[in-house]
């Protein structure tokens, strides 16, 4: 059967071109993500032994040494891993779709094979052979592309500043082996389901005139679809009740499962939706619109294949970007709502820190009611089974609670005595601490300390995980505040601008910059947005490009089998313009459908995620990156329209040459 597989790939190259391109690109994307990830692993996380370190004992008694010089590659690694997940998800989606579509377009061949005595197993082997015949060269091509682009991608990643140190392109061999292997697995898995369908084709189907789309809904599809729907719905439903840490994966994976369910269950709900969509089409363009509406409605499998990639990419990009930007928006809304201080004092130059004297002089000013200037530092914290780094700050919780709205969840609010710490609510919940329990931490370059928890504070990002007493010594380098929040007394509260000017004068404009809180938030938000946008770009741009190519190749596949249909239309007098408009309407209809379904799925998941976020004194705002998603939709439409018009044009030209040929 291998011989037949190869011949059939060669004959139906247009059908397999889609799978080939999709798989090659998928392998390339996975390869690039994997090699960038490998490059982050190749970074020596403990550059040298000269940086201060601390050795702690965890709950089991094992000694754990952490060093302040350790590079935290976790952030960039998780971004890359997410990018890999997005790529793999879209690849699986597209490959399964193109495989199934390819089989559906060749039912008659399968029937004929069965007619001349091919067993179900033989047909299956032939189909799997085809998938290998496509997948092996596609994997090789994908690896070649990845080998060329991986160094460039690492270069680009360095440009974003997401990684704490510049990455060097690492060894390519294993990432590429991994990518090629996953490509082959994806292809065979995608074809496996399709081959089952192929083996079930009855011999009499060879004799049918038309490729009827009967029974698009099979039992297996229904069961998988319902399972995905249930799984997705449960995950999404759990998201609002769980903490922020758990809500993110629940919302993301729940939405992905819902997107899968939406695709699998398409045959159930697409027909009525399409009927509704047909109404305006018929009205707008009686001939071409009607033709388009009917062809979209009757060729259910083709419609499903065209809706699939659009739905997949919009759903996954939509949910990832919206979750990220909503998280950012909620954090900054929480910060704003919690800040009571009217002024923020920063060092004049960028990136410096305030010295102790400047903070003291702020406190001395008669118009100032309270100053909080937490000095951030990293500490090592020991848990039952491990030790890790945690964000901490030297700060006075009492001052902090005046400049920010902070709730005391447990314990009492008073100045921290030596040997005590305050911890944030998130830290307490995650590691199971409460007031009175003991936290073992260590300053880098110092000895482990066992401290009693004096208070558990709920203050959003104003409260770091661990608040140490302000007079704690021993950390190297000595921590210093990056800024101070200033609460003015009641008389001056109304004229924050004037107070800012006076404070600047008092401390010296060359040393500090005093900004009203609102202005300061505006400035810091733009920085954060820039970083978020970079992360979004790394996550979504490659996968989006990929999905667009998949949209194009699926269209090429579908038009490769429509020659007869279009010839027939031309013969009964449908004009070339009407055929083109029909193609246009069809593409617009399927893209709109994909967009709508994706929007519904994303809205469901993101609403749930929004419910899991807490913002002081109100609900979390929903932040949707409309610009980016709009661009993506526009790109889908553009690619679809261009490809379908080009493909129709090609078929129309062929019709005209064929008719002149018969006349001669």
């Amino acid at each position, binding site marked *: 059967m291998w011989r*037949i597989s190869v011949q059939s790939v060669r*004959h139906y190259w247009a059908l397999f071109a889609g799978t080939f391109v999709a798989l090659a690109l998928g392998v390339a994307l996975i390869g690039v993500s994997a090699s960038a990830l490998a490059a982050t692993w190749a970074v020596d996380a403990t550059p040298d032994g000269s940086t201060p370190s601390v050795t702690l004992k965890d709950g089991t008694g094992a000694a754990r040494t952490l060093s302040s010089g350790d590079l935290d590659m976790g952030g960039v690694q998780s971004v890359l891993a997410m990018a890999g997940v997005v790529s793999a998800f879209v690849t699986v989606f597209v490959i399964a779709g193109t495989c199934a579509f390819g089989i559906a377009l060749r039912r008659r061949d399968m029937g*004929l094979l069965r007619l001349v*005595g*091919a*067993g179900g197993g033989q047909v299956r082997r032939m189909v799997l052979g085809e998938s290998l015949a496509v997948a092996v060269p596609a994997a090789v091509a994908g690896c070649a592309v990845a080998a060329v682009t991986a160094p460039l991608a690492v270069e680009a990643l360095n440009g974003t500043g997401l990684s704490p140190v510049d990455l060097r392109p690492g060894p390519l061999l294993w990432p590429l082996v991994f990518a090629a292997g996953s490509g082959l697995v994806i292809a065979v898995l995608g074809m496996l389901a399709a081959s089952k369908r192929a083996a079930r084709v009855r*011999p009499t189907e*060879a*004799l049918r005139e038309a490729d009827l789309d009967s029974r698009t809904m099979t039992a297996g599809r229904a069961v998988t679809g319902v399972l995905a729907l249930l799984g997705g719905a449960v995950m999404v439903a759990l998201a609002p009740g769980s903490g922020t840490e758990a809500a993110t994966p629940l919302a993301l994976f729940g939405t992905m499962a819902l997107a899968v369910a939406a695709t699998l269950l398409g045959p159930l709900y697409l027909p009525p939706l399409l009927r509704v969509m047909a109404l305006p089409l018929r009205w707008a363009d009686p001939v071409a619109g009607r033709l388009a509406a009917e062809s979209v409605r009757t060729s259910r499998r083709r419609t499903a294949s065209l809706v699939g990639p659009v739905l997949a990419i919009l759903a996954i990009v939509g949910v990832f970007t919206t979750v990220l930007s909503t998280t950012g928006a909620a954090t900054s809304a929480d910060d704003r709502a919690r800040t009571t201080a009217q002024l923020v004092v920063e060092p004049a130059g960028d990136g410096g820190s305030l010295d102790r004297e400047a903070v003291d002089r702020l406190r001395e000013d008669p118009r100032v009611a309270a100053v909080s200037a937490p000095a951030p530092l990293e500490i090592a914290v020991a848990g039952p089974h491990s030790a890790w780094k945690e964000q901490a700050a030297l700060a006075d919780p009492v001052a902090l609670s005046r400049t920010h709205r902070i709730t005391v969840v447990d314990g009492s609010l008073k100045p921290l005595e030596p040997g005590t710490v305050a911890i944030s609510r998130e830290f307490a919940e995650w590691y199971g601490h409460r007031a009175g329990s003991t936290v073992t931490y260590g300053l880098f370059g110092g000895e482990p300390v066992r401290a009693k928890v004096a208070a558990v504070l709920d203050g959003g990002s104003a409260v770091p995980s661990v608040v140490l007493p302000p007079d704690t010594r021993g950390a190297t380098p000595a921590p210093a505040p990056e800024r101070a929040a200033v609460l003015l007394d009641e008389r001056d509260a109304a004229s924050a601008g004037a107070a800012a000017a006076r404070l600047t004068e008092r401390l010296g404009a060359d040393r500090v910059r005093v900004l009203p809180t609102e202005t300061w938030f505006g400035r810091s938000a733009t920085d954060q947005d820039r970083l978020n946008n970079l992360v979004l770009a790394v996550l979504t741009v490659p996968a989006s490009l990929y999905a667009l190519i998949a949209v194009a190749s699926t269209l090429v596949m579908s038009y490769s089998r429509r020659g007869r249909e279009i010839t027939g239309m031309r013969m009964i007098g449908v004009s070339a313009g009407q055929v083109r408009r029909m193609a246009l309407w069809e593409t617009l209809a399927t893209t709109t459908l994909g967009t709508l379904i994706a929007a519904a799925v994303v809205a469901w998941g993101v609403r749930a995620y929004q419910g899991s976020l807490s913002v002081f004194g109100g609900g979390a705002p929903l932040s949707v990156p409309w610009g980016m998603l709009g661009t993506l939709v526009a790109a889908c439409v553009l690619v679809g329209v261009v490809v379908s018009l080009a493909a129709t044009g090609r078929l129309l030209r062929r019709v005209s040459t064929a008719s002149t040929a018969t006349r001669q």
Partner: protein
Amino acid sequence: MPLLTDIQLPAVQLAAVSKSYPSSAGPVPVLREVSLGFPQRALTAVMGPSGSGKTTLLNCAAGLDKPDTGKVLLGETDLAACGERELTVVRRSRIGFVFQQFNLLPMLTVYENVALPLRLQRGRVRRERVMEALRQVGLEDKAGRRPAQLSGGQQQRVAIARTLVAEPEIVFADEPTGSLDRKSGRQIMELLRDTVDRAGRTVAMVTHDPAAAACADRVVFLSDGQVVGRLDHPTAEAVARQLSLWER
């Protein structure tokens, strides 16, 4: 032309075969208790008006469709009682098909299409054997072509060559001349006739072309799912006369 008698053993024997298709107004009977034999080493034509059940009869006889009741005996095997797996084996080695169209796999060359039954049987494909079959249908020079590069008549001849290679017990042909011009149609009928006379094959053919039916050893007339008459050693005129009689 061999002498045809009912004593001659049938290659396929239908015994009281009934078949109906479901419709919104209840089951519609297509075949009613049809009993019919297709004698060995003979060409049997089945004729009848549209909707008389010709194609259903052929599909049942070939094991492509299951009768509701009755038996379909191919030699000792009751096709009506066979499972899909057994039917696959039967189709592979004991039955051949020639259809009006869609006979050939478009991705395979003419040679590969003819060799296909041998490959499916996992036998060794002997090139001489395939080329000999192609020579018999006059297409040995087209072995490397794809079906799309052949005319309808040529494609039909390739399908006949395929049945010559597989050496089935019976060949079923559904309107083999249906979509061909007269000349190609005559050529196809001569070839089918040849496979019976020279190679000693059995052919069962559905047609509504009296000229094609005239090449048969026997014509069976079907109307409303029942055998309503038969004609041995027909001429085109006799067939046409008989048809106009039944259609009156």
